[in-house]
């Protein structure tokens, strides 16, 4: 919530460049938080911010919100457009609503929490860090994950985790189809507890059961005897 140390920034009648420059300058000056008003689902609001600051978006946001940032924390009181937290290096982004396609693409660190549902390709190319989806996740979520942890409390559409190299996917509901090179496995000691504690910390309703999925490494190196998997992967 906004407090005396929070700067209010009204996006109305301001160009994207001006809005971002104000945020960057505030971060440079050590302002702890900015409340961003009248976001009107605009794109690229709060990108390229490389100093720690807390951003409070009052309303829906467009494409690439908190994209290519480092050390930024954000709460989005609405839904987000494509590519929220694109390539975030470190920090935390909470989307109170839904996130459109490719939420948290190529995340390299930090955590993204979507309290509603995520669109297709949620956490595509996840390289490190964590993505949590309170609801359902769309087609090919976790596609080509390289590492990190994706938690989906609801159901997942086709191709979940397809071609993932490493990392973990935790699924509360059902997957319409598990992607190539993905297997279900038993959690190791303490892993499930850690997932549950993380959900509780972000007040995301935990599902009754959670399945752990990971790469079966069958796509790490080509194997001509496993054509069924490779015909869709190579």
């Amino acid at each position, binding site marked *: 919530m906004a407090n005396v140390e929070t700067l209010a920034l009204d996006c109305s009648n301001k160009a*994207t*460049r001006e809005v*971002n420059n104000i945020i960057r300058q505030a971060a440079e000056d050590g302002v702890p938080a900015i409340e961003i008003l009248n976001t009107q689902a605009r*794109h*690229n609001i709060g*990108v*390229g911010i*490389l100093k720690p600051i807390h951003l409070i978006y009052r309303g829906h946001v*467009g*494409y*690439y919100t908190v*994209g*290519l*940032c*480092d050390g930024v924390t954000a709460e989005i009181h609405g839904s987000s457009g*494509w*590519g929220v937290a*694109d*390539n975030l*290096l470190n920090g935390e982004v909470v989307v109170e609503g839904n996130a459109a*396609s*490719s939420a948290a*693409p*190529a995340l*390299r660190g930090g955590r993204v929490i979507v309290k509603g549902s995520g669109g297709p*390709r949620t956490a*595509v*190319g996840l*390289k*490190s860090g964590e993505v949590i989806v309170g609801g359902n996740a769309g087609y090919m979520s976790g*596609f*080509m994950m*390289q*590492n990190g942890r994706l938690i989906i409390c609801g159901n997942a559409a086709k191709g979940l985790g397809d*071609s993932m*190299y*490493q990392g973990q996917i935790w699924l509360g509901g059902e997957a319409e189809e598990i992607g190539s090179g993905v297997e279900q496995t038993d959690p190791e000691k303490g892993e499930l507890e850690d997932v549950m504690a993380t959900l509780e910390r972000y007040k995301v309703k935990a599902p009754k059961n959670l399945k752990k999925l990971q790469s079966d490494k069958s*796509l*790490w*190196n*080509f194997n*001509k*005897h496993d*054509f069924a998997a*490779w015909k869709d*992967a*190579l």
Partner: protein
Amino acid sequence: MTGDFKRPPAYSGVWHPDAIEEIQEKAELGRYQIRGQATKRHSLPNFDDLVFTPAGLSRMPLEGYRERCDTQVVIGEGRVSRPLVLERPIMIAGMSFGALSINAKRALGMAATNCGISTCTGEGGMHPEEREHSSKLVMQYLPSRYGMNPYDLQKADMIEIGAGQGAKPGTGGVLLGLKMSEEVARMRDLPPGVDQRSGCRHPDWMGADDLYMKLEQIREVTNYEVPISIKVGAARIANDVRIACKADVDAIVFDGMEGGTAASPAIQLDHAGIPTIAAIAEAVEALHDMGKQNQIKLIVGGGIKNGADAAKAIALGADIVYLGTAPMIALNCHAPIYLEDYERLGTTPYECQHCHTGLCPVGITTQLPKLMARLDVDEAAERVTNYLNAITMEIQLFARSCGKNKVSDLDPNDLRALTHDVAIMTGIPMVGLNGRQPWWQKF
């Protein structure tokens, strides 16, 4: 008499030895063939089908050894605060650390710096040594986003959004396990030794409107300082130009089907995309249609070998040529040394296309320390510098001989076509017609 007679091979036109070998190799591999370098097609329309028509009595040439002939090209002039100034109309194309050894990357960076031109990271992130050795470095922004971060974007002199390459348009990159060393894997956040298959479509944009927003995001991160280009495999040129124009790029790169690669499905190399010469003609027309020919620079690559190819590309309407394979050959690719290692790969110099194996005999496309040590960085940088100097002189030679004191002043009127195919493709008149339509078309 009969003893001297040698019966010509009676190969089938359909089941010739190459086709038989290909089928048998697939029967062994269980997958399509993968190879490096470029298409094996011999009959593509190319720049050899064009000739210059230098000055005579009707136009005066410039003195070849004395008169100035400007070669500078600037990308993003009047559009960004730190445009990319190239001292020659040449850029070294994106080739990743991973595909190439770090020694090769350093040598290319040093040569490009010597010549006042740029080199490019390729996929896999910006290696600090490449940045250090390259005064002008283009950073590629690719679907995989390997090694991507805002700090390196800010260190770049231009950002190139990679949306395809000529060797394998519509397909992602491949880096086989032997080249996925500890360092390459660390930069890409991948496990060492895996066969890496990159995504071929950007995960977070689709179509012209999205691309505009993606460009805005990158411009925000780089403070609107550096130009942004988009690289596409030459295929659907006119529509791609329209989308690039709408997205307001500073330059568009078309990579023809002759373009090189470290690893590609072989079938893709030979059967996808269009030749560079055709790509230029279509792109120039589309840029004129959009009224952007003076704002957006056209960069073309794919099979450009010498100053004649480069000058012809410029005369057809390109602003800059992209060179990838040629500088690699100048590094030492195909050099007839370490012959026993070529033999071990089942090949010879001049026909080697084994970049994908990671066992490059001359130490360029490898990550194995023993092989990498075979490339002396300083010597290799000097060879590439010499090559770049030579082709710059060749480009100037044609410009001066056509009476132009700027290379960029070369234009289609300086060319004639030797073949009907290329004449139709490029709109350049056939030789012997004095620039006119055939005489019989008058009647």
